[in-house]
């Protein structure tokens, strides 16, 4: 690192030069011009160029992305947020990094499964073309292996939930561990990374239990007692549909081993809808009617408000805004939050819906 930090005097010289450049390009910024020719340069907002799109299964594809020079790398299991323009509208979604960590200038990959009616996933899997510039965010998330790999590991995954685990398996961090992977997919052909996983199993690197739910039915977590008898003694990472994760959490805590289970959800468990109401985004001067099941984040975005966002499911707090007045309901637990005029109660807009008229400051 030291080599890349210029001595102080050149730094202040560069800063002054930059300030001069800003005066030259006012009212826009020098970067607005540089972006026209070098969107991936160092110092630019993080973006990536799609290098290739490889189909994995009939409805999943891997995107190989060359991140810009500001990319700081990732830890296997973490996700990146991807901003793509679908029908001209910027949409942000989170995707687990499936490539092994490499040099910061190496391409990374994410693997996307198209879900029915999914706006972004279908666009990425079916319409994205190499060469496209996408917006990126630095990797984040704590669904990661500890620094020293545990000796015995269980991965419990289903569908696209294999993605963060694929990143861990590929990283080589588990070379010395005893690894079991129990993975569910509708059929053998739907197993994302099927050939690679089977290859790992053949080489003895992992024990693979594939569950093809179309013929064998959904996995009942209690079956783990026979499939992986020592599963409670293993450090376990689980990722997949909400039903599977909820059942796993219940199973592990009922047996008193909740601490050994690590889960990653791709979307929030929603139990209660609010009552809906008129939402005002004060600084943007936008007012909309929002339904009781619509997260405030979606309501704002649909009205063209530049809403901050992150995971879109209540874990990262990237979407928090002050509630100036009114009432909102947390979609995950039905909890009501109210604010009196002048208050600034901070709410997570991605998992909160209007419960009567409310005002958000943005």
């Amino acid at each position: 690192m030291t080599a890349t930090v210029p001595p102080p005097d050149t730094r202040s010289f560069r800063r002054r030069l930059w300030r001069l450049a800003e005066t030259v390009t006012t009212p826009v910024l020098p970067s607005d011009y540089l972006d026209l020719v070098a969107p991936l340069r160092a110092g630019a907002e993080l973006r990536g160029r799609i290098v290739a799109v490889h189909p994995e299964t009939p409805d999943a594809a891997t995107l190989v992305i060359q991140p810009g020079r500001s990319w700081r790398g990732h830890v296997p299991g973490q996700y990146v947020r991807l901003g793509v323009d679908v029908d001209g509208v910027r949409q942000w979604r989170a995707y687990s990094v499936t490539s092994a960590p490499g040099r910061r200038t190496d391409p990374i990959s994410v693997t996307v499964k198209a879900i029915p009616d999914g706006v972004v996933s279908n666009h990425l899997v079916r319409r994205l073309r190499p060469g496209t510039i996408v917006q990126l965010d630095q990797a984040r998330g704590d669904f990661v292996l500890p620094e020293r790999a545990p000796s015995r590991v269980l991965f419990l995954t289903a569908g696209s939930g294999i993605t963060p685990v694929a990143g861990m398996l590929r990283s080589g961090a588990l070379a010395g561990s005893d690894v079991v992977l129990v993975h569910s997919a509708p059929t053998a052909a739907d197993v994302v990374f099927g050939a690679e996983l089977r290859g790992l199993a053949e080489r003895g690197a992992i024990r693979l239990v594939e569950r093809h739910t179309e013929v064998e039915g959904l996995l009942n977590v209690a079956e783990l007692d026979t499939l992986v008898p020592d599963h409670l003694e293993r450090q376990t990472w689980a990722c997949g549909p909400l039903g599977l994760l909820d059942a796993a959490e219940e199973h592990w805590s009922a047996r008193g081993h909740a601490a050994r289970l690590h889960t990653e959800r791709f979307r929030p468990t929603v139990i209660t809808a609010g009552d809906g109401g008129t939402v005002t985004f004060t600084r943007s001067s936008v007012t909309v009617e929002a339904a009781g099941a619509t997260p405030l984040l979606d309501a704002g975005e649909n009205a063209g408000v530049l809403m901050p966002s992150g995971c879109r499911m209540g874990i990262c707090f990237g979407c928090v805004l002050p509630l100036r007045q009114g009432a909102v309901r947390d979609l995950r637990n039905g909890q009501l939050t109210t604010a009196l005029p002048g208050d600034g109660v901070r709410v997570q807009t991605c998992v909160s819906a209007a419960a009567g008229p409310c005002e958000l400051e943005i």
Partner: protein
Amino acid sequence: MTVIQKKAVNPIAHLTAEDIETLGKELDAIRERVIASRGERDAAYIRKVISTQRKLEIGSRVVLLFSLFPPAWIVGTAGLSVAKILENMEIGHNVLHGQWDWMRDPKIHSTSWEWDHVAPADQWKQSHNELHHRFTNVVGKDNDLGYGIMRVDEDQPWHPAHLGQPLYNFLNACFFEYGIAAYDLDLGNKLKNGGHKDPEFRRRVRAVGRKIRRQFLKDYLLFPVLSGPSVLHTLAANFTANLVRNLWSHSVIMCGHFPEGVETFEKTSIEGETRGEWYVRQMLGSANISGSRLMHIMTGNLSFQIEHHLFPDLPSNRYQEIAPEVRALFDRYGLKYTTGSLPRQVFSAWRKVFRLALPNRRQPAPPVTPLDDSADHPTPALVAA
């Protein structure tokens, strides 16, 4: 022009309240259709205009580094003038209207955009979007009617100071951006009524001051100095480009609401105004400019002022597309769609500035003026029958 309520022939007398609401619904339907179909094509359009503008601006400024040579001066000045016009009209004005907010691109968004203009974007947005577009052509409410310095409607009271208004209008045209900044500050009123002591007003004045300084530094110091031996030539080129941009935007904007045929409204007429009535006010209170596609882009599609006033936040590239439909509605409801070529509308607007510099003649002017463009349209009475 005189407020619609006092006219000998009221141009909307033939419409029932129900007609007006149906008309409003038809316009709502056009709006909904455009909103539902906004997409990739529109996004590609505005990005292309922005990147073209930026390349043209850089290119012109580079050429002007050698402005000592007359051909470079001419090419550079012309290019920079066009770039500045594009930046203010098709890009700035429309982005600040929120026409592109639906793309959710933080770089092309009404809340983050700043433009090449001495009026800070947030101040302009407030006076333009919240006052002018809401109170369009309501005498005493819409300060765009003469910008508070001129009399452009018979129903605005005459004052001897109005004798000088052709001169003010010319000066305003030359330094239009400063006129707008002063207007957004409500400078005249504030100075008159002692409001200049208000801390909020002072904050706004300081913001304008900062903006002017940055604009000056760029156009009148940095680029000239960078040009070395061409310093004075570049200075003159930048001044000229700003002047051209000011004259052009002033002319286009005058054509929007001042030409003959545009109606004005009384303050009381907007009390309890319905959506349909609001639409009708926009329809009759605006005028279009006819011309080529390039001309429309250079006016920021304000040549479709009528469509813009009906739907201020639809993407500008769509105004041209919906214009035939909007015009058909005018015909069907027997309303006058005021339009004309740029020279004709500019002339018409200027004529009014001159005419109203003097007090009203006893007899109000006949309702149909020689510049009326509705000869080929049925008169309201006939359609209503």
